[in-house]
């Protein structure tokens, strides 16, 4: 029914074979591939940076992840007799994002498993467009649940710095330093020198040098998340190309900023460092590249605002009160599940609902 129909009229010589189809008869230049490949392009600077600071290994990890995603997608489609659509670029993005969300020191087989589960679940839901959860984050959740030690310890320090980006601590990522500080402050049995040490750590994290390290990416972290500057550069490209909409990333980051200031401080309410909360961990990668995943986020404009705020709230809750130092990926997964509801509640007011006159 949706196929364009052709009719030929033998009586008309001038027009032997005219195409009949429903309007509109022209379409925009932007197709799915264009959308997807711009996202890939936007992610490239972060890739280059990770190779630079963590070594060539991250490139091989990422390529392994991409290759796995593409092959598994093709395999699934072949088995199910569906058209092979790996060229649309969506599996490539999943592969990249999965790799970007693992520590740079993990074994290769781990990204293979992660990437394969990401695409597997997506395909079980029906393929591109039908999946409910962001595939890359789901793949990450699978490996996180199965191999938590790999996922939380295989960090590499950047070429010119320490894991946390500060001198005081060399064995933890910035958010884990903060988490540890929270614990030490809250624990009545903490020794004075312990407290003094975490205080020093936190003040260094919040120093201009510490924040600059976060911004440029001179800290440890998952492969693709460390350089805020380069991720934002890619995001600017996506905004310019109108591939993503500001609503989710801005409300997400904004909510984390506000709530991070209120709850994210180690010394009680309203002591959180806003810049630190925004730049540390995977927030920028998550907010601009994963929460904005079209398939799994709301289609309504108002819905996207709620979605972003929701992601922000959950992220801060996990960071401040949860067992993990970071909450970006779980917050997005949780909000993905609410997308159909949000869409339902926020469908826009139809044109013609207004009654104003002048």
């Amino acid at each position, binding site marked *: 029914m949706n196929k364009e129909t052709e009719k030929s009229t033998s009586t008309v010589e*001038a027009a032997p074979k005219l195409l009949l189809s429903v309007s509109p008869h022209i379409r925009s230049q932007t197709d799915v591939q264009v*959308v997807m490949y711009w996202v890939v392009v936007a992610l490239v600077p972060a890739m280059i940076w990770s190779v630079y600071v963590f070594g060539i290994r991250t490139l091989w990890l990422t390529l392994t992840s991409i290759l796995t995603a593409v092959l598994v997608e093709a395999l699934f489609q072949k088995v199910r007799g569906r058209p092979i659509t790996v060229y649309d670029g969506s599996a490539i993005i999943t592969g990249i994002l999965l790799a970007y969300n693992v520590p740079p020191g993990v074994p290769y087989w781990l990204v293979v498993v992660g990437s394969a589960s990401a695409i597997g679940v997506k395909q079980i839901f029906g393929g591109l467009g039908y999946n409910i959860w962001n595939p890359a984050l789901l793949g990450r959740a699978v490996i996180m649940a199965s191999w938590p030690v790999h996922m939380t310890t295989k960090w590499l320090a950047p070429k010119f710095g320490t894991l946390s980006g500060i001198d005081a601590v060399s064995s933890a990522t910035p958010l884990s330093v903060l988490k540890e500080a929270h614990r030490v402050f809250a624990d009545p049995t903490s020794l004075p020198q312990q407290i003094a040490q975490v205080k020093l750590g936190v003040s260094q994290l919040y120093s201009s040098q510490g924040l600059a390290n976060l911004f440029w990416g001179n800290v440890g972290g998952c492969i693709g998340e460390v350089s805020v500057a380069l991720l934002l550069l890619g995001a600017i490209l996506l905004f310019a190309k109108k591939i993503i909409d500001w609503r989710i990333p801005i409300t997400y980051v904004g909510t984390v900023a506000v709530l991070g200031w209120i709850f994210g401080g180690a010394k009680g309410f309203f002591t959180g460092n806003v810049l630190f909360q925004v730049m540390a961990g995977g927030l920028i990668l998550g907010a601009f590249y994963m929460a904005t995943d079209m398939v799994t986020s709301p289609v309504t404009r108002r819905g996207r605002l709620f979605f972003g705020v929701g992601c922000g709230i959950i992220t801060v809750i996990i960071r401040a009160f949860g067992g993990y130092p970071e909450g970006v990926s779980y917050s997005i997964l949780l909000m993905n599940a609410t997308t159909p509801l949000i869409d339902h509640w926020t469908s826009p007011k139809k044109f013609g609902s207004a009654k104003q006159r002048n």
Partner: protein
Amino acid sequence: MRKRTFSGGTHPPECKYTENKKIEVLPPPDLVTIPLHQHTGAPSEPLVKKGDPVKVGTKIGEARGFISATIHSSISGKVKEVGECIHPVTGAYAQAVIIEGDGEDAWDESVKSTDSYRDHEPQQLVEMVKEAGIVGLGGAAFPTHVKLSPPKEKPIDTCILNGAECEPYLTSDHRLMLERTKDIVEGGKLILKALGCKRGFIGIEANKPDAVSAFESIPKSENPFEVAPLEVKYPQGQEHYIIDAIVHREIPSGGLPMDIGVLVQNVGTALAIFEAIRFGRPLIQRVVTVTGSAIGEPKNVLARIGTPFSTLFEACGGLKTVPRKIIMGGPMMGIAVFTDQVPVVKGTSGIVVLDEKDAKQFVEEPCIRCARCVDACPMKLLPTTIGDFARLGMLEDAERTGIMDCKECGTCSYVCPSRRNLVHYMKSGKARIFEERRKKKSA
């Protein structure tokens, strides 16, 4: 220049190849095929039979019922047949009067011009418009006299002349605004008089600055219409959005412009009204933009109603390549026809002939929920959701989510990267809902 607009919409490449081409008057063709149904509403009743002599402007079809329009001969000659032709809008056979020309091009005696046309009473004006068989020339072809006779309880306080011409490729209104500026204003004044309405605007997309200044150059004392430049955006020219842009009123769901005190008339229609009342000329010709990649020399032509498309192609340098698609109207809302032997009707604002390269066929892919259609839908609907409901036959859900409010403007399909045929789903869903309603009524 402050540009007014509405929210949503899109901006397809303009392709206005013919904007600098003066309207060319075509000689009367040897044969015209005039369908008796060229307007929204009931078809007209034939008034002639085989062999009858007719002249230019002779009435050949009488309006049947209130929403209908009179039909006139567009050439002088002899009725060859009252038969059938393929209708460009429906693609099906429809009753038509086929007239063979005698080459004299003599006007019917009933066509009389008058200098005192400004003294006509409103009621008389409406009657003359009806007699002249004028319908909306923007493409929708709604009988104009009906629009000019709003019920008492719905007085019109604002009249908008629509010169937006937001469809890519089409330039017929643009040319008319440049070449017939004064006459359009005169027609507009007659509309104001017929309605007893004081306030008037003329909405023109800002990509036609020459048309804007043409209207602005007429002294205020002679032109009651305020020029309202509009943002260049499709579908700016649809009634809903031009009204919203200019007077910030929204037509209520399922309602008409008159419900909010507004009347919108295409600039070409205003001109037709002027010609009917000033010169007594019924609507027997119109300006058609003939363009597209397969046309030898794209032009704006003044063509008699009933001229076969193929004749227009010949007048426009013939076809350069094998045409792949012939569209009556613009590419956003126009209708694809399967033969060039269909006639120009009153609603034929343009004919776009595309070659193989431009008449692309698209393969539909699953929706990636990118929300482009949602952001672009000027009716603020959720095209992807409604489209799915309609596609899956969930008609109640489709109705609940607003399928009947869809104006079939094509914006959603145009922007969709997955190439979903959203408008097709809307159209077929609506058709099925109408079908159900009919069944319920008759049951």
